[in-house]
């Protein structure tokens, strides 16, 4: 199939070859992809985008395989983007996540695509957000993104996913790991996989203690805004009329969308020792045997419902898109600066700074002024 045969109509009609090729065109940054992506823009927005992230060997692929099976069982069409690292030396990559998901290969309601990072840091590939939009427009109900095995700062997934599942396992480190900044702050749903192993209970305790402390401190984490909105719905009174009026006022203060009754009743387990304090759910799973998978999917879907009901789904997507626009604009500026005549301007400025004729900040101001002229 030729790239030119790829069209929005073919992607929309469920043509897997066209969808797969379009994602390749995105990866190659082919200018011809843009016409198709623009035509697809009218569609989509309905997919629930779920990120699965965690350290290498935590069982993300096996977990993803089981999530796909459970979601299929609920009648949903599912797409998976599985990201693995490229070698910084050869540019090659072994994309091995699929090995755990091959039983879904011939299920027409499942699309699985492996992506190499191709030098991009942050736990995803550069193409990931465009690929998600394609799969959303192609009509998948859930798009699951499995990140590379992450360390402590690969947090790009929060810019794409509606719901982030942070996967931990027993035996990775002492409790100080749980209070470090970075990946531990980005979960909406926490999963302790390999929960049949020694030390699982301790990991759960540590995560819960971390979450509880974050909530008590009013720390700005990924979930804190949602929980602030929830707190407005947790009146001290148990009087139904009071609860209802708190609900009404919150409903009024939030943009659009009918609030689903019941969505607020349950987002999270209560923090130990603080019966009125809510923290995100911590779910124990053994992905290998399927233990805990139903509960995990329930929590993921409950989170989605809560996002939708509070209006946070839209505000989260808006913030992410604004961030992505900023990144896109910065890339355009960079590439504009690298074009011939401007490159010469930069060289001239560099010489001027080296010769102490102007300082670094004057040079930046000059460049910025030059840019706004273009």
């Amino acid at each position: 199939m030729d790239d030119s045969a790829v069209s929005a109509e073919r992607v929309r009609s469920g043509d897997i070859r066209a969808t797969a090729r379009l994602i390749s065109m995105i990866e190659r940054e082919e200018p011809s992809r843009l016409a198709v992506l623009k035509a697809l823009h009218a569609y989509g927005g309905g997919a629930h985008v779920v990120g699965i992230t965690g350290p290498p060997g935590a069982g993300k692929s096996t977990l993803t395989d089981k999530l796909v099976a459970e979601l299929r069982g609920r009648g949903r069409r599912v797409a998976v983007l599985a990201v693995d690292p490229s070698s910084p030396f050869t540019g090659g990559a072994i994309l091995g996540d699929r090995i755990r998901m091959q039983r879904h290969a011939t299920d027409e309601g499942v699309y699985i695509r492996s992506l190499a990072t191709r030098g991009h840091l942050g736990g995803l590939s550069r193409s990931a957000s465009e690929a998600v939009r394609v799969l959303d427009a192609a009509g998948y109900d859930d798009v699951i993104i499995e990140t590379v095995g992450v360390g402590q700062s690969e947090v790009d997934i929060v810019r794409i996913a509606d719901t982030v599942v942070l996967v931990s396992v027993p035996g990775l480190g002492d409790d100080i790991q749980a209070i470090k900044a970075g990946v531990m702050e980005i979960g909406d749903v926490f999963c302790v996989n390999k929960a049949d192993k020694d030390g699982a209970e301790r990991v759960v305790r540590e995560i819960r203690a971390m979450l509880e402390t974050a909530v008590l401190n009013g720390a700005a984490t990924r979930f804190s805004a949602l929980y602030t909105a929830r707190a407005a719905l947790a009146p001290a009174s148990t009087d139904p009329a009071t609860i209802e009026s708190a609900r009404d006022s919150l409903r009024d203060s939030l943009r659009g969308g009918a609030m689903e009754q019941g969505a607020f009743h349950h987002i999270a387990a209560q923090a130990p020792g603080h019966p009125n304090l809510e923290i995100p759910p911590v779910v124990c799973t053994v992905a290998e045997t399927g233990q805990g998978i139903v509960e995990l999917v329930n929590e993921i879907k409950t989170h989605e419902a809560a996002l939708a009901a509070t209006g946070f789904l839209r505000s989260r997507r808006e913030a992410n898109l604004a961030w992505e626009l900023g990144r896109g604009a910065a890339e355009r500026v960079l590439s504009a600066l690298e074009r011939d005549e401007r490159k010469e301007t930069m060289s001239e400025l560099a010489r001027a700074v080296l010769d102490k004729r102007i300082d670094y900040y004057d040079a930046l101001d000059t460049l910025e002024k030059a840019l706004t002229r273009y």
Partner: protein
Amino acid sequence: MERKIRVLVAKPGLDGHDRGAKVIARSLRDAGMEVIYTGLRQTPEQIVSASVQEDVDVIAMSILSGAHNHLFPRVMELLKDKGVDDVLVVGGGVIPDEDIPGLKAAGIAAVFTPGSATTDIIEFIKNNLKRRE
């Protein structure tokens, strides 16, 4: 951006020996290719479906069980059914010389038997891709 070669490495059939396939996967990776490794006991349907979803340039299959005369042509047939004619398909494993002409006639571009140098396999792939810029 530089065109990356994407290769699906699969083990059709029932034998459980994937050492060779892993060596090939690693060598192709070191040659700068993106290798989607699908593992053991893949049916031709799974292989073809995965190669379409992954939009690969190459399918590399290894088989040691002796079922190559059935499974390799079956993959070619399924590719044809799906209208896929731009993927290079190569095979390898314990395959008697006398079976090779038949496999090539079925559309397997090359058959690499034990002792083949990985550099030859890499060269062959680079020189025989069906898709080009």
